[in-house]
């Protein structure tokens, strides 16, 4: 009975195709993430500038009101309202400052994702490189060893990638974080 030949050529083509197709998609993912990073950076610059300008204008307006209240008699009800507005504005300014920190957190998450994408591209490169080492004339046992070595290499690279991508942003919402004095 004749031995069936292993479809080495097809295996090499498969590994190469997985590598090439995968890398193409990851290149697109990376491009989208870079664009997102840029837009977030632009947005926070504009938001920050507008926030500062509005705050400056409101502060100057409040200063004028304080002068008016000092030099003129206002009905108690109106004085209470103005004081309440002032406190409200203060609270909302605090909330805005907390919220405007979103770009810092999201940019760190995106940077980590881009690193992982680059790591995945390297993994796929490794896949194709190992595939190129397999020759049609190799015996079954030799090919099994190649595949085991490829598997080992991929696992090692994957572990290294995971090790280099420590999670530094765990926040699930934009509520202010804990404070601890040692």
């Amino acid at each position, binding site marked *: 009975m004749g031995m069936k030949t292993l479809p080495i050529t097809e295996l090499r083509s498969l590994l190469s195709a997985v590598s090439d197709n995968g890398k193409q998609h990851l290149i697109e993912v990376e491009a989208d993430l870079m664009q997102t990073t840029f837009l977030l950076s632009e947005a*926070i*610059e504009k938001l*920050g500038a507008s926030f*500062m300008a509005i*705050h400056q204008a409101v502060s100057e307006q409040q200063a004028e009101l304080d002068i008016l209240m000092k030099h003129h008699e206002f009905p108690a009800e109106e004085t209470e309202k103005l004081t309440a507005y002032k406190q409200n504005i203060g609270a909302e*300014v*605090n909330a805005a*400052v*907390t*919220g*405007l*920190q*979103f*770009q*810092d*957190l999201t*940019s*760190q998450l995106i940077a980590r994702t881009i690193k992982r994408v680059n790591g995945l591209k390297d993994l796929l490169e490794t896949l194709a490189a190992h595939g190129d080492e397999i020759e049609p004339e190799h015996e079954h046992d030799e090919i099994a060893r190649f595949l085991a070595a490829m598997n080992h290499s991929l696992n090692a690279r994957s572990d290294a990638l995971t090790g280099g991508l420590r999670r*530094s*942003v*765990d*926040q699930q919402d*934009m*509520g*202010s*974080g*804990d*404070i*601890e*004095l*040692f």
Partner: protein
Amino acid sequence: MSKTILAVDDSGSLRQMVAFSLKAAGYDVVQAVDGQDGLNKAKEKTVDLVLTDQNMPIMDGLTLIKNLRELGSYSKVPILMLTTESSDEMKAKGKAAGANGWLVKPFDPKRLIEVVQKVIGQ
């Protein structure tokens, strides 16, 4: 005379919010874009408090703290971390390096000022 705080963070928007909050409370703020820049600026003028991020290029926060504590002028200056990191492991590293406190981002300006006032006064 106003007290001076060194704010170290590689995020421009974060530094902007920190400076805005601290200046509103009457503090002077010196900004640095990473740990090395922070160390250079700290050496130029001794500040009253250092507020530093952890994850920064060139020099991270923990390394900055260790370097500052080796300077005689900064052996007693309060140093607070302001970072996204919240694990007990990182806090322990911060404390061992010489940090006096740990603030997790995002910060609330009112609470930030309360802590700063508690540590260095008005």
